[in-house]
């Protein structure tokens, strides 16, 4: 069985999520090739070639592929699938955009958000906002899978020396093109990969307050910043901060929820964190039911006290 893994990257460096998904791919089969599609992404391919367990790297480059839009991505991957039994992508927004398009073109099912590989054709995935875990198996000739990176340990970034092969990029799709992007600038660790995450909710009340309370704490802890949907909807935080069922899934060593009630949809994105801390002034807030350490307090006094105790 041969697996094609779609690499996650920014055309400059290989994202750590790729190494986590590689672990899942290697649990399906020992024959894993990594596809790097992008533009000016040679360094990404070279990095992928060094990861332990990679058999071969395929590099497809063209301006059309630079933003990994679904149409050219599917045009590239679908013909390559003649040589593979499975295609695996990280459950990032790009992966979730591309993967079902590939699946339908192959007349195959889409298996979303795999958190456990129980065999080459048996997978576990969360459903109903993570309130249930479903084990599924299939006899489909082609498997099309997205993997939740937080559920797997990263494969070793070094140790391999796979060959890099160039593959032909597809023609530009006349039907879709990139216009612009507004990337949230931050020097903090990436939300999905951070060891510590501090998240703020509706209680913060404004964008200024959200910044003023969470940024110093995050900087002191070397943490990434997250938010509840309510905080994002209200404009206190950018959309890519949203943690939850329909936002990002995180599983850091430490998750600190500040002024977040703990709705089902929020819990779905953070309940696999190792240690959960909740600061909320309502002792009955549902977040306390899953918090390892709960502090019933107004964040306005609790966060400065926390800053002080951290020294």
């Amino acid at each position, binding site marked *: 069985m041969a697996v094609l893994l779609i690499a996650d990257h920014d055309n400059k460096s290989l994202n750590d999520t790729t190494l986590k998904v590689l672990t899942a791919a290697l649990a399906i089969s020992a024959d894993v090739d990594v596809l790097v599609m992008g533009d000016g992404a040679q360094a990404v391919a070279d990095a992928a070639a060094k990861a332990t367990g990679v058999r071969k790297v395929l590099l497809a480059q063209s301006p059309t592929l630079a933003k990994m839009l*679904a149409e050219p991505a599917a045009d590239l991957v679908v013909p390559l699938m003649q040589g593979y039994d499975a295609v695996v992508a990280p459950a990032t*927004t790009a992966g979730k955009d591309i993967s079902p398009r590939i699946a339908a073109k192959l007349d*195959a099912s889409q298996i979303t958000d795999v958190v456990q590989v129980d065999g080459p054709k048996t997978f576990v995935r969360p459903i109903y906002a993570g309130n249930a875990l479903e084990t599924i198996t299939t006899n489909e000739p082609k498997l099309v899978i997205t993997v939740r990176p937080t559920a797997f340990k990263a494969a070793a970034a070094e140790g391999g020396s796979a060959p890099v092969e160039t593959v032909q990029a597809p023609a530009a799709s006349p039907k*879709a093109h990139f216009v612009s992007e507004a990337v949230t600038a931050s020097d903090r660790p990436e939300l999905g990969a951070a060891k510590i995450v501090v998240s703020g909710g509706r209680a913060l009340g404004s964008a200024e307050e959200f910044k003023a309370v969470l940024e110093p704490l995050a900087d002191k802890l070397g943490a990434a910043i997250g938010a509840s949907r309510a905080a994002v909807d209200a404009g206190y935080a*950018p959309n890519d901060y949203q943690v939850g069922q*329909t936002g990002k899934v995180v599983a850091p060593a430490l998750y600190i929820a500040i002024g977040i009630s703990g709705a089902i949809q929020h819990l779905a994105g953070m309940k696999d964190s190792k240690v959960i801390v909740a600061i909320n002034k309502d002792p009955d807030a549902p977040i306390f039911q899953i918090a390892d350490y709960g*502090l019933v307090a107004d964040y306005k006094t609790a966060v400065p006290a926390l800053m002080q*105790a951290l020294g």
Partner: protein
Amino acid sequence: MKILVPVKRVIDYNVKARVKADQTGVDLANVKMSMNPFDEIAVEEAVRLHEKGIATEVVAVSIGVAQAQDQIRTALAMGADRGLLIQTDQDLEPLAVAKLLKAVVEAEGPALVLMGKQAIDGDNNAVGQMLAALLDWPQATFASKVEISGEHAVVTREVDGGLQTIEVSLPAVVTVDLRLNEPRYASLPNIMKAKKKPIEIKPAADYGLDLAPRLTVVKVVEPPKRGGGIKVETAADLVTKLKTEAGVL
């Protein structure tokens, strides 16, 4: 321009799903069911485009049990013009749903399919992309802004790094994210009016498509429960516990 909006009947987002004791699935008996929240956002967007004069007709389609007419009625009360129920008692996988929707698109000829990015029951996030693939249409997923200009849609997408804007030619499939709009509540007069709007009902089998499941559910279990936590009195206590007991600082 006609807009097609697929709406799914799902467990209400306020209800916590419970796994059945025999591990065959989630217990939906006597559970409140609603329109998938993302689909409400899609209906709202379609109705707004209708109100702006950009869309000429909004058709809501649901695939599912007879009771899914309730969700179609909700869409009609929000302002959709007519409904279609493709009736089946089978729980269809995303590919089968996409195949049925493709048949509906071919019959109806919409220039735009506006739909949810994800149904909150299966959390698949797949049908829109699959429908676009089957039709060989472009797709714009996770939309937080949609502008129709002539033969194109300019769509701002919520992506991992922030926001991305793309342009797709019409016809296209657009899947919507949370920030696109805030769906209206249907007013009582509009709920009454919706009762008179037509809903066509067709059995799924009439489409003559292969809708058989491809995946076998081995079991459905509850996720491991987190051990109970404790309350700390002060921030200083918290830091001490995080350092010594939890070892995460």
